[in-house]
């Protein structure tokens, strides 16, 4: 084998010898039941135990742990949101990320490689600049980049003026980055389990036990389980649960697709987002390109979307990153995201006493995992909304006090 230049990938470290009890069965009752063992649910359980000393907690999951959006996202982490309320909760989350691996004692490949959001037209520049200045007054780190500066940070970006939608600038959040989603979920799960939380998989909620407007427990495929308090952290399935509990939520469940390439030589060491041409890409530690697409337009629980969305996205990717022309599409998949009318989450109390909701993270849930768990735990523990969660109450749709992140956040947060 002469004359060959071969590249090698890096091997990830091993997961711990023990994570959680296999096939854990539920007890008769708990202080708190969290429905949904995704990132947010597991983080909620962890912070209930860690911050509030509530350890008689079960996280129940209809499938396998972190098998929903937590295992299907593109792992982008940032906090450079437009509105003050968003900056509040997402930057709190980012601060938690910055110490998370140490705190829970689990490798998560949290990498603050920066997140770049490209602007492609005069009006796009204007709205991104507004975002940039909003971040400045909220003390969220943000840098404005010229196309040349974009190229310095990410040499593979085509900044030629001859492409259909040339790069005209970008915001850049240096503290943003990526983490490995499974490792994050497992880290929270293990840390929660170590503190006494039961993690119960293959346990689907089929109804609620509600007496005089107060929740007393849940009915599941593994039997009835009593609880003083119940938190719904079920992302795309929130509407289904809320309807079981007898109330409506302004959420729509939509397919969101993502894709990954096989391992490739390292060509991109930051995260690049372009809402205007629907490209969201990072290159993971081992070398695979991870890309997010837009949501499909229709309601679905099928965890699959249309292939034309993928084709459109790859065409855009080849325009912006000519070096990707030869990259291969390895795998596509879909998640179900729950989207509120203002593209912001819904956190807090519900019409049913002692039943709490945390949903509507839409396309932006992964980055919020620590912050979401933190405020949800506080909300459940105290029986009233945490200060950071308060603006996200269900009643904002009655008052009209929406937190509209459509404009600045684009499709994928």
């Amino acid at each position, binding site marked *: *084998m*002469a*004359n*060959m230049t*071969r*590249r*090698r*990938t890096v091997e990830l470290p*091993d*997961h711990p*010898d*023990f994570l*959680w009890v296999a096939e854990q069965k539920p007890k008769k009752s708990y202080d708190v039941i969290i429905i949904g063992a995704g990132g947010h649910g597991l983080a909620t359980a962890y912070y209930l135990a860690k911050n509030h000393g509530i350890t008689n907690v079960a996280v129940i999951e209809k499938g*396998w*742990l972190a*098998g929903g959006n937590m295992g299907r996202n593109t792992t982008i982490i940032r906090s450079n949101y437009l509105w003050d309320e968003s900056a509040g909760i997402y930057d709190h989350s980012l601060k938690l990320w910055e110490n998370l691996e140490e705190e829970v004692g689990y490798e998560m490949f949290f990498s603050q490689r920066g997140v770049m959001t490209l602007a492609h*037209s*005069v009006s796009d520049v*204007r*709205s*991104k*600049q*507004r975002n940039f*200045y*909003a971040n*400045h*007054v909220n*003390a969220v780190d943000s840098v404005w980049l010229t196309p040349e500066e974009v190229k310095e940070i990410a040499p593979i970006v085509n900044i030629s003026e001859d492409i*259909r*939608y040339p790069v005209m600038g970008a915001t850049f959040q240096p503290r943003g980055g990526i983490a490995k989603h*499974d490792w994050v979920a497992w880290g929270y799960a293990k840390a929660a389990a170590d503190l006494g939380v039961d993690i119960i*998989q293959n346990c689907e909620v089929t109804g609620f036990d509600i007496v005089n407007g107060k929740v007393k427990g849940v009915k599941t495929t593994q039997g009835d389980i009593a609880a003083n308090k119940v938190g719904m952290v079920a992302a795309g399935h929130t509407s289904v649960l809320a309807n079981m509990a007898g109330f409506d939520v302004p959420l729509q469940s939509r397919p969101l697709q993502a894709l990954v*390439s*096989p*391992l*490739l*030589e390292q060509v991109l060491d930051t995260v690049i987002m372009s809402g205007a041409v629907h490209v969201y890409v990072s290159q993971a530690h081992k070398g695979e390109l991870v890309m997010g697409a837009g949501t499909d337009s229709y309601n679905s629980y099928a965890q699959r979307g249309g*292939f034309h969305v*993928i*084709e459109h996205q*790859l*065409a855009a*990717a*080849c*325009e912006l990153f000519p*070096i*990707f022309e*030869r*990259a*291969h*599409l*390895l*795998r*596509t998949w879909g998640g179900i995201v729950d989207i509120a*009318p203002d593209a912001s989450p819904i956190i807090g109390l519900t019409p049913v006493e002692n039943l709490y909701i945390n949903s509507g993270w839409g396309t932006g849930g992964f980055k919020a995992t620590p912050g979401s768990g933190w405020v949800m735990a506080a909300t459940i523990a105290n029986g009233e909304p945490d200060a950071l969660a308060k603006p996200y109450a269900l009643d*904002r749709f*009655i*008052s*009209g006090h929406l937190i*509209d992140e459509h404009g600045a956040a684009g499709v994928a947060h």
Partner: protein
Amino acid sequence: MSTVNFTFDGKQYSGQKGESLASALLRNGVLHFTDSSYKDRPRGVMGLWVEEPNALVNIDSGAGEPMVMSTTIEIVDGLVARSSQGVGDLPDTRDNSRYDKVNRHVDVLVVGAGTAGLEAAKKYSDQGKSVIVVDDKPAAGGHLVYLGQAVPADLLSVLDRENVTYLPRTTVQGLYDQGYSVATERRTDHLDSKVHTEMSRIRTWHIRADHTVLATGAFQRHLVFANNDRPGIMLSHSAATYVSNGANPFKSAVVVTVDNQGYRDAVRLSQAGVTVNAIVDIRNNPSGPSVEAAKAAGIEIITGKTAIDTCEKEDGTVKCVSVGNPDGSDAACIDGDLIAVSGGWTPVVHLATFVGIKPTWDAKLAAFVVKHSDSLTSTAGMLAGDFGGDDNAEIFFGPTLTTEQALVAFVDYQRDATYRDFKRAIDAGMRSIEHVKRYTAIGTAHDQGKTSGTVTMGLIGQAIGKAPDEIGSLTFRPPYITIPFAALAGRDRGLLSDPERTTPIHAWHVASGAPMEDVGQWKRPWYFPKSGENMHAAVLRECAAVREGVGVMDASTLGKIDIQGKDAGQFLDMIYTNMFSTLKVGMSRYGLMCGVDGMVFDDGVTTRISENHWLMTTTTGGAAKVLDWLEEWLQTEWPHLEVYCTSVTEQISTVAIVGPKSRELMSRLAPALDVSNEAFAFMENKHADVAGVPARIARISFSGELAYEINVPAIYGLHIWEAVMSQGADLNITPYGTETMHVLRAEKGFVIVGQETDGTQTPDDLDMSWIVSKKKDDFIGKRSFSRADTARDGRHQLVGILADDGSYVIPEGAYIVAGADANTAPPVKHIGYITSSYDSAALGRSFALALVANGLARKGEKIAIPMADRVVTGVITDSVFVDKENTRRDG
């Protein structure tokens, strides 16, 4: 067979045209193809086709391609391949190959041209249905081709029928809802090693079939024993096929099997001249015709035993296999430079699982199969469990291993994932296949677990005492095999990546050297620089020309919707916040429309052409959205209204002449038209010939200046523009672009939807309460205005901002704090943000528009704008900077 020359890892080889690179390398005696991804262990080819886990190469010739399976590459002269250690190269050069796409509707799609697929094609073709047969290999016939047997002529000839389309070298990559499939056809790589820019290299087929037959066949799987990865250890069916075709680097072999397939392969090896030292069979009492045939061939058969470990030669290839009881005891070596493994068949269930059809475990076949038939999809052949009746597989995935052996017993070769990794996952509490996969990385490589998937399910079952189907179901995701991004981009690259919309006057703009602004898909001239001018200078000049003389702008991109019908006025009253039904014929009115949430959604001028005929204009970017909006209300809420909407954006060219001298120019262009203010008032429309073309002229203004908008059929747009330029030459007619338009309207305090608004502003917020009718019972959005948050005091309102330093243009988007907070470090409470900001020729200084909390009550207050490098101070003002009294619009 003709001979072709190729290069592998810098060395020249020759092989036979049409054979795979893997086959050609074996023919040349190459066993060690590459080293493994993480553990640097020598690896050779295992498989025959896309199940190959090891033998990956980067292609440097032709279009170039990273990390492809050498088993799927047909060698051609000049092919240059480099072994890959599991990481693809991305050369920094463009791939100039052509890629294209084809859409096809068909009665029946048959996936797989093996016997089962051909039979299905025949059946449907006989019924007169249109059929597409898609097969990923170069030739039809499936296993028969591998076995060197003739495909029955009555089946093969089906492919030539008129109602049958046969696509060889075409892979169905995804099966989706409602019979939709995506396939990729490799069209040139097998012809030569050139870059093809005329004929497409890969064609993506989008196929919609009423019925899809999946006859996708099966792959053989391996067994998990110690050192099961050395070069020379292969799947038995693959080894027998290569060797039978003369690609035979082997002298002696041991076949390790769980089924009768191993026996058939042993016989083929033996017939091809390889000495088969033994067949090692886990089963105690193998039986069946294949077993008898092997016995008849004189091959020694060892039953009840299996492979435990292997030894290597000096060059790293396999030397012998140690054979013992399934618990690992009693092991002894048998020599063989080929260890051929038959671990059972794994049907290709991928496409079925893509649409949610769940495979079932067939214990008799030791395989997940898909027996499915409904109106959309059915299965046939090995996928449906038709294994031919002489397999008798034992459910067995590997022997008991010591901890040391487990460290080198590979479950997923490409990921270097071992039985020890697998066992740790189980011990850590992992039970779901998905968790084991994530814990170990099994099934995540280029092959996505084609060989390792079932093996892993089986091992979990063995480990915790359950059948494989109790573990969960095998789920795959598209695509079936990897596809270059460029192939899926197809022709949508370069300027074809998104359509460009241009006005009939576009060529003139381009010729004049105007830089273009992208507004949605439209290309609009941004400004018209004179030689040596930068944008700032050009815009100041253009603005001054409009305010002092006359300018001309191409306004053709504005959305235009023709609205007709007797109820149109009533309809518009519901759509707009202000009253339209009272508008007199021949008059125009500016209107705002809101969503049901009460937030401003679009704006524009609507003209009553005649009693029941209106023309609505929308923002350039909002045209399609507004038309959909109108239709939604008309069709789904108020079908009793007789109103018809038609987009006429592309049918009408609009040329606006603007400025105090526009009246003079208008009279020259339309001599028959009385352009006096008395005869042709503000907001009036007149019909007249302009430069010989019948036109509708509207006296509307987006700058505050006297202005005329000349609307003509689109084909006359350029003619009118040129007439304006020549007739206005001595008036110093000045063409201007979007930037000057923006400055002029901002000076007058006019908003741009999407710039002063972001979907959270009511008309009141924009200081436009005058446009919200108090008389109408209802209009869309009205009810939302009285909600608690929408009706509260202190909402952000449109105001002007003047920086204390008039030479400084505040950046748009900058956030504003109260003057008292000028020196407060962030985080600092802000009171609003700048929406528009420009240098103004008319004012001789900079100015800005902003949305400020309770802004209308705060005029005169000091503000500050903190930025990274400075703090700018200024004052809140009214949002109208020029001609508050509307004295200029009449000239």
